[in-house]
């Protein structure tokens, strides 16, 4: 059985081929979902890749959340479908309200491009189910607006519920509680600033991202065969 993953492409996305190659290398089939489409089709998971959707105008993700595909992605998420947002994709998911918080400019006002160490905090997510709790992964980050921010009540709540999926060992960008990735309460929607797809080839910066992508593919396979409830406003509208 092959996991089938849809990769959302906005004008300005630029990591969609990296994600596709990494997932195909793990045996998945992938298809690109143009942002103007109004349905995601029969797929097992959705990835919103990195880049600069709609030029990051206004705020990263602020315009992208209104693209037609996002309504379909939201319905897919509400229906329990695995949704992963990487970097700019994480920003899109917070702007869309599918994940708590927001990503603001790095505390040092520098674009950071380096490989960082992250601790796996929660394995109750579609991104980390195959990982070992407490294990440390070396993953590349590549962002200017990766400073995770939310109000104190939300921070306390997501900490208490174990919604922090990955945490930086050394905080590179000023993120609250060194948060590198969060999940929704049910764990089927996850966003992270690091790029697991860029840590999936031995010729690159290592292969620590593979366990994360494999987790996603496990979730995508499990999703297959789940009869999908028609969601209001989906497809036909």
């Amino acid at each position, binding site marked *: 059985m092959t996991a089938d993953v849809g990769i959302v492409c906005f004008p300005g996305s630029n990591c969609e081929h990296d994600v596709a190659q990494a997932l195909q290398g793990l045996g998945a089939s992938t298809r690109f979902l143009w942002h103007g489409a109004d349905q995601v089709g029969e797929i097992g998971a959705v990835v919103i890749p990195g880049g600069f959707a709609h030029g990051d105008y*206004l705020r990263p993700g*602020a315009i992208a959340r209104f693209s037609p595909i996002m309504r379909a992605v939201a319905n897919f998420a509400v229906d329990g479908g695995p949704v992963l947002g990487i970097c700019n994709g994480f920003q899109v998911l917070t702007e869309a309200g599918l994940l708590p*918080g927001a990503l*603001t*400019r790095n505390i040092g*006002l520098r674009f950071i491009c380096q490989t960082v160490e992250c601790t796996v905090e929660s394995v109750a997510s579609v991104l980390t189910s195959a990982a070992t709790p407490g294990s440390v992964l070396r993953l590349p980050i590549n962002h200017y607006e990766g*400073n995770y*921010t939310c109000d104190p009540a939300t921070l306390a709540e997501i900490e208490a519920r174990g919604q922090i999926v990955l945490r930086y060992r050394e905080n590179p960008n*000023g993120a609250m509680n060194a948060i590198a990735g969060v999940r929704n309460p049910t764990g089927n929607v996850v966003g992270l600033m690091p790029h697991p797809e860029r840590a999936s080839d031995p010729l690159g910066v290592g292969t620590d991202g593979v366990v994360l992508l494999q987790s996603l593919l496990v979730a995508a396979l499990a999703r297959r065969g789940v009869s999908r409830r028609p969601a209001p406003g989906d497809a036909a509208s």
Partner: protein
Amino acid sequence: MNYGIVVEIRGLTGLADPEGLAIERALPSLGFAGVEGVHVGKVFRFSVDAPSAAEARRTAQEMCDRLLANPVIERAEIRVLDDPPESST
């Protein structure tokens, strides 16, 4: 009637504003002593066709809530220009 609107977006109080801080720290080196509380934000200017200033403000508020500002990190201040006197605040 056409109402001019100015929307000012600022970060929520208490959130880090590294850009404002960097500017605040640069000012003394130019001889501007005693400057505090520098914050950097965004300004939007546009006009809205609305039956009243209150209605124009309501439209601008909805625009802020749904697009112009992210309430998780930002707050918006709306000014309606050319207010009729009875609805000026």
